[in-house]
């Protein structure tokens, strides 16, 4: 069976969930061969093997953290040359898309970004995408070269599928461009202890209606009662009430959880673009005409300062 390269997103050897989802999708097309780079690369192998990687190509070098994007492109290109895969799958993060694009160009291949599903087809993998703020669903394929496809988080279930996961060292020669953009400083994000926004099964978001940074405690309390991630509209972020890393929407994160709860958010097209594919959508808004109600499975017209705390208390009571 043809091999499929899967780019591994990991933090010091801890594999992030979207990569495991990619392994599920890769197995529909062929045999997953994972590529893990940088500090802790070899430590990813056990988890990757458990989820179907037949092989794990690893390479550790300071370049991966000291310079932007290009060293990783060089490594994927080397992996492509070594394996001649049927497709290359990369998680759809901002960096993932940049890596994938440059790789595709070097390979003379086409690129598809932000796929939400992937299946095998007669003429190569067929990717499902959600476009125009999720108002259309398209099916596309790469028609030239090795398909390079980036896939959004939450596009497939993580499945156990034990495979060999044999670790092999990848030989990488860095290109002249590799050291072009130096990372001169790095401030890691502080962990909130809550799930990662794009990976969470439940997202609880607040907007302009939350009316102040201190009031986000109400949104956080609801999120914590459900073990959810916290999101925010751009209006709330621009007002300085919540960090930009938590913004949901076109210029923030795109989320696709099982449950999305929007409070004090009107539902502008740019916000919808980032949450419309959520499975179940719930909203609390005091304006019955707010466009968010067009999307909801359940909506409460009311003041969030009454409804949300009551909801949180009720959830806590039911969970006992």
């Amino acid at each position: 069976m043809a091999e499929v390269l899967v780019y591994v997103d990991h933090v010091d050897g801890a594999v992030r969930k979207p990569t495991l989802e990619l392994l599920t999708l890769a197995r529909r097309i062929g045999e997953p061969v994972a590529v893990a780079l940088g500090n802790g690369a070899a430590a990813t192998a056990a988890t990757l093997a458990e989820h179907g990687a037949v092989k794990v190509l690893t390479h550790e070098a300071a370049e991966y953290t000291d310079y932007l994007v290009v060293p990783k492109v060089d490594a994927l290109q080397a992996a492509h040359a070594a394996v001649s895969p049927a497709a290359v799958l990369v998680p759809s993060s901002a960096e993932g898309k940049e890596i994938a694009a440059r790789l595709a160009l070097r390979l003379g291949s086409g690129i598809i970004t932000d796929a939400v599903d992937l299946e095998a087809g007669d003429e190569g993998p067929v990717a499902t995408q959600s476009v125009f703020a999720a108002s259309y669903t398209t099916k596309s394929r790469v028609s030239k070269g090795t398909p390079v496809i980036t896939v959004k988080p939450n596009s497939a279930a993580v499945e156990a599928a034990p495979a060999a996961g044999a670790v092999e060292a990848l030989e990488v020669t860095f290109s002249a461009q590799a050291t072009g953009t130096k990372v001169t400083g790095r401030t890691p994000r502080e962990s909130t202890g809550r799930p990662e926004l794009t990976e969470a099964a439940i997202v609880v978001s607040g907007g302009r209606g939350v009316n102040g940074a201190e009031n986000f405690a109400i949104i956080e309390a609801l999120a914590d009662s459900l073990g959810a991630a916290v999101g925010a509209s751009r209006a709330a972020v621009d007002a300085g009430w919540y960090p930009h890393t938590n913004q949901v929407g076109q210029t923030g994160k795109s989320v696709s959880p099982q449950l999305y709860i929007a409070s004090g958010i009107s539902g502008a097209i740019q916000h919808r673009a980032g949450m419309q594919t959520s499975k179940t959508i719930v909203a609390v808004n005091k304006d019955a005409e707010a466009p968010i109600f067009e999307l909801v499975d359940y909506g409460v017209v009311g003041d969030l300062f009454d409804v949300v705390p009551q909801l949180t208390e009720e959830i806590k009571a039911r969970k006992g």
Partner: protein
Amino acid sequence: MSLRIVVTVKYVPDATGDRHFADDLTVDRDDVDGLLSELDEYAVEQALQISENSDDDVEITVLTVGPEDAKDALRKALSMGADKAIHVEDDDLHGTDAIGTSLVLAKAIEKAGYDLVISGMASTDGTMGVVPALLAERLGVPQVTLLSEVSVEDGTVKGRRDGDAASEQLQASLPAVVSVTDQSGEARYPSFKGIMAAKKKPVESWDLSDLDLEAEEVGLEGAYTTVDSAAERPARTAGTIVKDEGEGGKQLAEFLASQKFI
């Protein structure tokens, strides 16, 4: 010293309009108003700020690849304060994908001459966010992308990239390709004076032959990807909406429990 900045701007269908596909599965531009992509206004703004903060002689050229109407986007950028504009327009460009667009842009940027390219973080219609990286690869210069803060001094570009795991400080030598996010600072509105001045600013028109490109390299024919189908997402089935009469939170909890979320 002089600094030549090329800002790439895209003319896009209005996101609040009813966007849809044409029969050949390209974006239908006929029924929806177009405009300068809001995210590219941030790129124009940063170019203007770099110019204002510089002792060098800075020249800002705005560049677009797009249909006839795309001139509107160039006019807007010129009225914000850019110096001149280049419009790459050719019937054979219809249906060009990101790989093809980056080829046309790269050829035009090289022909125009540049020290710094500034792009938006993503186009508001395609939303791929890959063109800046593709430009850097094609031009063989550093990519300093997704910056929420940018500055240029002594032939070096510096900026801050806020990623998921960390916020990074980046640095590269010119020439380079930069992209800026909507966190980089609100874009200015064109002043009346700016709008009047823009009418006199030069707009060059180039076609594929001006860039030594063949029709087969671009357009639907040259595309590296094929869209097989596009279907309107079925409207979500109307949900239950209740008015809070004091029990709204409890009712919501009951719904969540019925869906097994609690």
